[in-house]
């Protein structure tokens, strides 16, 4: 079974609920090396997305476009804007299509990663959400089914989280805490892994 607008609607609801649940953990993670708002931002953002997603639209591009619009008006945080960028990338890539295959997901994530890097100036290894998207994109490259993708993506996300924990943040607000960020999860990566787990479940 391919990914359709219904898959997205379902995922949006789960993401909204997961963001609400994860709010405090994400705020706390961001509070240790940023301004402590990742959680509240993400909750508000996915509430807006879940509300904005059209109920009877089959064109994936139009669905993603609606999500992008909700994000663009709903937040000004770094991570929120990167989510906007992701939605816009997906909207462009899926315009006119009513389904995409699970085997296309890795490629889409790779373009999201590239767009995010172009927009935000992060490099691989800076310990941002981009590093996790990169890892998940690679892991999905050879997955053809939902089940394969689910397992591979979650494992890749967890591995990235574990691998980067021991490294310092090199970007944005967190950069200024330098060595003190070693041992801490990057809030953006943590957020992505939580949402992934919720959507995959």
């Amino acid at each position, binding site marked *: 079974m391919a990914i359709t607008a219904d898959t997205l609607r379902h995922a949006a609801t789960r993401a909204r609920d997961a963001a609400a649940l994860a709010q405090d953990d994400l705020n706390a993670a961001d509070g240790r090396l940023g301004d402590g708002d990742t959680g509240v931002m993400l909750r508000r953002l996915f509430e807006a997305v879940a509300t904005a997603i059209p109920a009877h639209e089959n064109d994936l591009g139009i669905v993603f476009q609606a999500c992008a619009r909700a994000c663009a008006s709903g937040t000004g*945080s770094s991570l929120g*804007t990167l989510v906007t960028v992701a939605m816009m990338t997906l909207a462009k890539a899926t315009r006119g299509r009513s389904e995409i295959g699970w085997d296309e997901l890795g490629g889409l994530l790779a373009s999201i990663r590239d767009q995010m890097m172009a927009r935000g*100036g992060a490099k691989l290894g800076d310990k941002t959400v981009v590093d996790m998207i990169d890892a998940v994109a690679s892991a999905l490259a050879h997955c053809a089914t939902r089940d394969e993708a689910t397992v591979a993506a979650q494992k890749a996300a967890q591995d990235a989280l574990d691998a980067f924990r021991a490294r310092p943040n090199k970007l944005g607000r967190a950069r200024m805490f330098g060595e003190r960020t070693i041992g801490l999860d990057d809030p953006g990566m943590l957020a992505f892994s939580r949402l992934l787990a919720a959507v995959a479940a």
Partner: protein
Amino acid sequence: MKKLMNAADAFVDEMLDGLVAAHPTLVREARVVRAAHAPKPGKVGIVSGGGSGHLPLFTGYVGPGLLDACAIGDVFAGPSVDSCIQAIKAGDGGRGVLRLYGNYGGDRMNFDLAGEMVEMNGIRTTTVLGTDDIASATPDEAAKRRGVAGIIYAYKIAGAKADAGADLTEVTATAQAAVDACRTIGVALSPCQIPGAAKPTFEIGADEIEMGMGIHGEPGIWRDKLRSADDVADEMVRRLLADPITDKSERVSVLVNSLGATPLEELFIVYRRVAALLRKDGRTIVRPLVGHYVTSMEMAGLSISIIHLDAERERLLAAPCACPFWRV
């Protein structure tokens, strides 16, 4: 930390309502504040924006000879892409718009995205980033420095240049030169709290100060026991003067700025010392500013900005401007 406020979620919108109610020269449209006169046909527009919680920055500097419009976000969070688009459109008088704002990752992404989108509407835009905070990165990484209080000099100078009829390229170059000639450093004594947050933005001992702390509580250079005003001013001025600047000049302007709770009395005690130090360094202070110009709500502390002035910048600084918090 006690605040006179209503619901935390309403903080920014109620604040904006009050701001425009008190100052009819400002017009509010959602999360954008524009000058009543904007857009001004034939004038290059100047647009800024950023998070709330820094009044008079950003929205307070909207007015003739300064900003045409401002996009404003939640407290300490950038404005949304839509607000940035809306602000740029509100500032566009047909000769293009300079996006002039502080160097923070989120703000940059949003204003960049917004810039690309308005280009489809035929609006030319350029960007100049405030990067005056010398405590936020070393000189060789100066492009990573965040923008703090010094940005108001860039507002004033670029605003006067645009008022004088300069084109987008000229206004942009003038703004960039103003940023390049300006350096700021701050010192924090006590934190602030984001409305609705469970605790203050940082913790600091009852007898401690932190040199170089950012306006959102970003970590600084050192934290130690409180020192005398003169000692603190000495170190701040020394660091500011030691930072490499291509175009140093004998004539400078100085901004001694309260981060919020620090009263004018202390600012003047510090200014007195800063003026003496600059005099000793052979410099002449032009049009000094002492007061609450760029704050972090109730944070205690202050920042010192020094901008080197060539003849044009000095002239532009003296040109008329009018906003609720700065008038020449």
